[in-house]
């Protein structure tokens, strides 16, 4: 239905283009009027006026129609005597009613369902008809309006450009909408979560085991139940595990990345650089699931084998394996950025150092790196934010149990791993367990936001200094 409507709108508005163009042309010739824009702009003008209001209306309608119909149907079903204990049951009944309407329902029919299905069909009909009528009304009204405007020989090009500019502006607003969407969707569930679990109990609790959290009725939790719940949602082991794995990753990524960045910027010949830079950047282009697979199936078992040979117990999901592989993944983030940053240190500083007889490495260590330091720190912070937000490597190669440990040979878990573990498969909304994933997401979002903000400020400041 919607597709047909869109198609009709497009056909109609594009035919208006030709109409508008020829009309203004003939108008201009017969009336000997000087047009303010080329005839085709009058065509464009009509097209935009005719299609945009109708399409926007259709979009908004389609977004709200299902929600409204759903609440009406659930209401009518309730009036007929259906009893819903919670939202899930209501959803189920609604799905059943929909299925009856489509003729795909295979279960038993009772009178309530039958009646509701009829009501559903009725409402769908009403909604569809009124949608079609309204859309045609809008098209006709906006077309008449725009045709009238053209007659007055308005400046069609300017008007078209104003509308297009609006379109451009709206496109750039999508970024803000996305951010808003992220914040709202995280906050919405997090607030529910924090209304059950005290935020300080969450931030400072040292025990994380959401699989133990069963809540019969979220609206009335006894103090004893709360004690148990509190113990299931302690954030400390997660931030510790996340930080620990990120730290191990940085132990690999910072020296290797920094040294290769320095080598490429200062020593490498053009040929070496042209070859090695893209090859190192391959590391950033490999999907993280590939690293996860490699870490879980090759590196983890390899470390355990090596550990056994030395008489050490190494978990096959050790923090070491996950951290090492994550570090390798991050190398190009450090190396490329620090390469750029070092390259933008002015040559005159190097010349000054060479001129007093410093060797190349002395120049790099004592002049170039100190000068590039804010930029380098910025790139390392970006890499850290990358590491704590990384998901697949830790989901596949790090553990699931939240251990508070600083032994890299043991397994530990991270924020992202827990989000995936909680939300994978079927989840029931409205349980603290599911909501906790959003609280974790919010925490992660804020942490990476702060890191990025500082990093970008540092890099920007540095750029301004030498540009």
């Amino acid at each position, binding site marked *: 239905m919607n597709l047909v409507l869109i198609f009709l709108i497009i056909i109609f508005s594009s035919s208006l283009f030709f109409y508008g163009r020829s009309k203004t042309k003939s108008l201009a010739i017969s009336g000997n009027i000087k047009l303010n824009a080329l005839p085709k702009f009058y065509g464009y003008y009509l097209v935009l006026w005719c299609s945009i209001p109708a399409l926007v209306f259709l979009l908004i309608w389609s977004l709200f129609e299902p929600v409204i119909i759903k609440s009406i149907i659930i209401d009518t079903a309730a009036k007929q005597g259906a009893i819903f204990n919670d939202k899930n049951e209501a959803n189920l009944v609604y799905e059943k009613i929909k299925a009856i309407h489509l003729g795909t329902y295979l279960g038993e029919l009772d009178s309530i369902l039958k009646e509701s299905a009829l009501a559903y069909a009725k409402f769908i009909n009403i909604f569809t008809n009124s949608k079609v009528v309204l859309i045609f009304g809008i098209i006709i009204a906006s077309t008449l309006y725009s045709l009238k405007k053209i007659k007055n020989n308005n400046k069609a090009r300017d008007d078209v450009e104003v509308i297009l500019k609006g379109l451009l502006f709206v496109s750039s607003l999508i970024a803000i909408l996305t951010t808003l969407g*992220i914040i709202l969707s995280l906050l919405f569930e997090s607030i529910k979560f924090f209304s059950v679990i005290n935020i300080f109990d969450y931030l400072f609790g040292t025990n994380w085991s959401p699989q133990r959290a069963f809540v019969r009725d979220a609206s009335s939790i006894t103090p004893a139940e709360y004690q148990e719940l509190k113990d299931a949602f302690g954030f400390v082991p997660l931030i510790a595990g996340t930080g620990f794995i990120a730290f191990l990753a940085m132990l690999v990524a910072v020296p290797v990345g920094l*040294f290769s960045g320095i080598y490429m910027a200062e*020593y490498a010949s053009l040929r070496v650089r042209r070859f090695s830079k893209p090859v190192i950047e391959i590391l950033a282009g490999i999907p993280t699931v590939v690293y996860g697979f490699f870490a879980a199936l090759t590196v983890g078992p390899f470390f355990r084998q090596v550990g056994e040979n030395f008489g050490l117990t190494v978990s096959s999901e050790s923090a070491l394996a996950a951290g090492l592989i994550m570090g390798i993944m991050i190398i190009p983030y450090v190396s490329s950025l620090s390469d750029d940053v070092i390259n933008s240190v002015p040559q005159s500083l190097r010349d000054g150092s060479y001129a007093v007889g410093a060797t190349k*490495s002395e120049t790099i260590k004592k002049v170039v790196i100190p000068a590039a330091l804010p930029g380098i720190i910025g790139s390392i912070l970006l890499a850290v934010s990358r590491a704590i*937000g990384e998901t697949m490597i830790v989901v596949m190669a790090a553990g699931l149990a939240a251990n508070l440990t600083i032994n890299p040979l043991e397994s530990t878990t991270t924020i992202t791993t827990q989000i995936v573990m909680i939300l994978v498969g079927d989840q029931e*909304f409205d349980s603290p367990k599911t909501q906790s994933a959003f609280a974790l997401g919010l925490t992660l979002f804020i942490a990476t936001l702060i890191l990025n903000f500082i990093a970008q400020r540092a890099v920007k400041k540095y750029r301004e200094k030498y540009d």
Partner: protein
Amino acid sequence: MTKEERLKKRHSAEKRFRFYGLASIFVALLFVLILVQNIFSKGSSAFKKTVIKTEVFYNQELLELKNGASEKDIINADFYEVMIESLIKSFPAKNIDEENELIRLFSADAEYEIKKAFLNNNNLIGEKIILDLTASDDIDQLHKGNYPRDLPEDRRRISNFQLAIYDNFVENDKISKNFNNYYFTKGDSRDPELAGIGGAIVGSIYSILICLLLAFPVAVLASIYLEEFAPKNKITDFIEININNLAAVPSIVYGLLALQILLATIQLPRSTPLVAGITLALMTLPRIIIPCRASLKAVPPSIREGALAVGASKFQSVFHHVVPLAMPGTLSGTIIGLAQALGETAPLILIGMVAFVVDIPSSPIDPSSSLPVQVYLWSESAERGFVEKTSATIMILLTFLMMMNFLAVYLRQKFEKRWN
């Protein structure tokens, strides 16, 4: 310390420093090599499958079909008896246990393969023909040399009896390796020998196309606005900060966004390429806007001034001159963004693409998997056959990514103008 000693020390420090740099690059390159070598050595065998030449007897007594039966009748007919009968004849078994072991050498699809041969030629009643039947995963892995046969029997998935049959088959040239058509055409399966990435590839293609259709136009329009039209004010600054931050938001957060908004609020269908495409588009958008803006910025002001000077409007100067010149950079940025989206896994897991999907999706609103999610799913499976399949899937995924990146580089080098 004399001057000479000191100099010597400084020079060796120089050499050491240089060596660290070179060694670091070498470590990174070495890792790329090890990873690729590891994946390829594990995965390349997945493109072949082991088949067993078996004589199939379309026994009239066991089939309720006649020669020339219609396609519908054949599809509805039961070939189970024919299969059992043919399989146990392939090697002398003494008792029912041994017969079961023998049957387990073949894939669960043996009946279907026998049926398919009959579909191709419906005059086989009473005939005996030789068919290449797909072997079970255990035999497949054994034949490819991935499975150790020198373990004690109780630690092996293959019994001594099955080993004897296998050896006999090898001796009689009944076992061979064919091109693994199942791997490319089938959907997911619990049996490694029957599992394929057909569904995942189709799912990935749908997702990426939707992502492209949504992200590309919006990204281009937004970049044009920000680079060419946006006034210098707080709103513009705010949009820019937003874009930069969004580009660095962990991908899993986009999964949470999709879960809450697309699935819970708008109630789009779970596990579908449609939702995946929208999620990836939101994620990719800032990552495309950034290179788009860079290539718009690289077009020198003289071009704009030239157009304005002949009386073009601001819009005309931008759309007729600046945008076409920036297109190569824009396209290559888009392709690189899409390549990242193609490899993205975490948000897709959250929107339910980890569902077990056997059918190949026929539209973007059918439940589906995607290539990287398939890698994740299979890597969790214990069977040896899945290790091979996972690695092969990674090979396919990397090949796609490589092609996209080459295309991006090619576009840039071939069409991009250098302004100096």
